[in-house]
């Protein structure tokens, strides 16, 4: 395995050179005030998951493998969608399940970086797996106040998505991860700022260019991001994470970001319709080494719609009231 | 009907005008009990030079028991204009207070009374301010113009 802490300088070089896969002919356009233009509406929906699933051995997969994966996925959706025959009622004791797949938009194909199909978002460590440090992880989580409660005892014990505080599964990031639906982002830039709005939950990351970090006593839900331009590449550094946003659970991935983590992201426009998004997570509280992931943000013509989550969050009350009812 | 209201109004204005003892900021009659007169002598421990009324805290030792009285005066602003400031009354000076105790005789934290007449033991006024004619100076009398 690599040395425990990859020196950040090397890490940064690694982050930047990765782009060689792309042809250099694309000329990045500039905004009205001269910054490289990343603006537009983007999506990161894809079948590829954060960690490599057992069915793939290495990072780059052939086209056929990609097609079979897409086929399996669509068949899976159909099966899920029609698990009941016409007129049949669900049996007791089974997993209650979710809802029809029409509600979902997890993506139809594996992601492609350049012309390579990828089996995982993680590109380092090489095995495409999160480099957990089991001992450190147990120790860090043991200090979490919430461990000694049942998950239905208090509202603060539900996931951040269920509480409608931020999108589940780190949809808004950092790092920004594909989830089951609403994988949509809008980027708008103005002098000194890059703003990334994640549809879920209308969370705007306002990245201050050449800015200084907030004092330690301030810990916004999505951390505090400052950015700078390295040529045409935007490098964003985020610290000051909120201790309640440690678990980043999606249906197809789970990872954790401790409050002392440092995350470096880069955004590199590779064509009119694509941005290469790469991130590096340095979090010695939980992981043996830094880990790096990479995925494209693809242009999409669709609009971002309002995702007012808290205003209609009946689920939270039902969950807690249900638990109380069961205790009686 | 008309003249009854008239009588009420006239009698009311007379009543108000006549009762010269209504202190302007608030009616002392509402706060202090006419049946609880006091005549105490004690050491000043603190003076709260605050509006709307200054409060002189006096420690009174009687028959082995010490009680602290809060004695209500008037607005310190008039005294400032007569040269009095927060150092004028030093803690420890002995004064005589004659007045009435407050209606709520709780004495929590301190017994409360109005300083109807506050003098030094020799009878001279603690709070001087009058310009010799018994009426305090206010710059309106040309003869006083400094």
């Amino acid at each position: 395995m690599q040395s425990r802490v990859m020196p950040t300088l090397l890490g940064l070089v690694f982050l930047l050179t990765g782009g060689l896969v792309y042809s250099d002919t694309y000329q990045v356009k500039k905004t009205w005030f001269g910054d490289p233009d990343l603006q537009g509406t983007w999506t990161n929906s894809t079948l590829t998951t954060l960690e490599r699933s057992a069915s793939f051995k290495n990072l780059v997969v052939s086209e056929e493998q990609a097609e079979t994966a897409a086929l399996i996925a669509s068949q899976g959706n159909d099966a899920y969608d029609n698990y009941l025959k016409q007129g049949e009622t669900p049996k007791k004791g089974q997993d209650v399940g979710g809802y029809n797949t029409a509600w979902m938009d997890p993506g139809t194909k594996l992601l492609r970086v350049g012309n390579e199909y990828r089996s995982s978002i993680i590109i380092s460590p090489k095995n495409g797996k999160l480099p957990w440090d089991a001992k450190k992880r147990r120790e860090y989580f043991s200090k979490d106040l919430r461990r000694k409660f049942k998950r239905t005892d208090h509202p603060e014990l539900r996931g951040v998505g269920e509480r409608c505080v931020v999108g589940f599964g780190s949809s808004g990031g950092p790092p920004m991860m594909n989830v089951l639906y609403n994988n949509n982002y809008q980027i708008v830039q103005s002098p000194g700022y890059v703003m990334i709005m994640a549809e879920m939950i209308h969370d705007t990351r306002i990245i201050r260019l050449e800015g200084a970090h907030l004092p330690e006593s301030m810990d916004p839900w999505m951390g505090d991001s400052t950015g700078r331009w390295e040529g045409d590449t935007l490098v964003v550094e985020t610290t000051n994470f909120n201790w309640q946003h440690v678990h980043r659970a999606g249906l197809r991935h789970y990872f954790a970001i401790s409050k002392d983590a440092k995350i470096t992201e880069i955004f590199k426009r590779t064509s009119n319709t694509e941005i290469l998004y790469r991130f590096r997570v340095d979090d010695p509280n939980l992981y043996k080494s830094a880990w790096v992931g990479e995925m494209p943000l693809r242009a999409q013509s669709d609009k971002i719609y309002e995702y007012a989550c808290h205003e209609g969050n009946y689920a939270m009350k039902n969950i807690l009231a249900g638990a109380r009812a069961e205790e009686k | 009907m008309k003249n009854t209201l008239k009588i009420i109004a006239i009698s009311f204005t007379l009543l108000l005008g006549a009762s010269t003892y209504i202190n302007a900021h608030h009616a002392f009659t509402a706060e202090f009990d006419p049946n609880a007169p006091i005549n105490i002598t004690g050491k000043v421990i603190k003076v709260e030079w605050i509006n709307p009324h200054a409060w002189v805290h006096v420690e009174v030792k009687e028959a082995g028991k010490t009680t602290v009285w809060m004695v209500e005066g008037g607005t310190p602003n008039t005294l400032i204009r007569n040269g009095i400031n927060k150092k004028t009354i030093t803690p420890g000076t002995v004064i005589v207070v004659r007045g009435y105790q407050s209606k709520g005789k709780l004495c929590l934290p301190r017994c409360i009374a109005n300083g109807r007449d506050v003098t030094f033991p020799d009878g001279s006024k603690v709070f001087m301010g009058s310009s010799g004619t018994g009426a305090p100076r206010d710059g309106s009398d040309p003869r006083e113009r400094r």
Partner: protein
Amino acid sequence: MSLIYRRFFTILSLVGMLNIAASELPKGPNDKPNLNGVWQVLNTANYNLEAHSASAAMDLVVGPIVPVPHPSILALGAVGAVPAGLSVVEGGTIPYKKDALKKRNENKENWLQLDPEIKCYLPGVPRATYMPYPFQIFHSEKAIFFAYEYAGAVRNIYLEDPGEAPMDSWMGQSWGYWDNDTFVVEASGFNDQTWFDRSGNFHSDKLKVTERFTLLNKHTMGYEATIQDEEVFTKPWTIKMTLYKRIGQDAQLQQFKCVEFVEELLYGKWRAK
């Protein structure tokens, strides 16, 4: 460009952008910058002079997991919550003496009982400047007078040093002079009853405050206040912020005499049953 050279440029542009040459500032009496107008800050200094995250309420009690709002203000919900804010204190934190810091933290714990603002008491200095209400400056050659919307507080800035204040007071005694184009105010004679914000930051009656009002352009003014109190702080410390001028229909001070709004709170228990 070398770092120093680059920094030189940013300062120049900063000064240039913000503070048009003194000669172009609107002129008041004796050719000094015209401070007249209705002014207000746009920051969260009144919540807490130091940096603070947003939080559920000013008065928090222990909750099962995270602190929750005090029962008596819970019903306010998000209206009672506190917005986040950067520190306005130069150097970040206030240099308290050890036991004074303990008292400040106790103040913060008992905000509901102790903050004079809750009882609509006069705000004192410099808090009056950054209350969430505007104030109007009357700048004439004979006096410079501040009228605050909050609780009808006022400050008459004497134009000569009147010497020591005869009595301690809530708004203190102030006198001011011009240091080139900055109006400097020396304030003292305070009692020890006011707070600097809603987070328990306090002072003794030895407090001395030196304020600096510098007109930057037609619509903004730089405000600085250096606070000195040997009894409570290890050294003098300074806060800095910007005052924004209200224009058009907003530039009219309204009345907020909050005494009548707290009669129920202060005297309710003595109502006739």
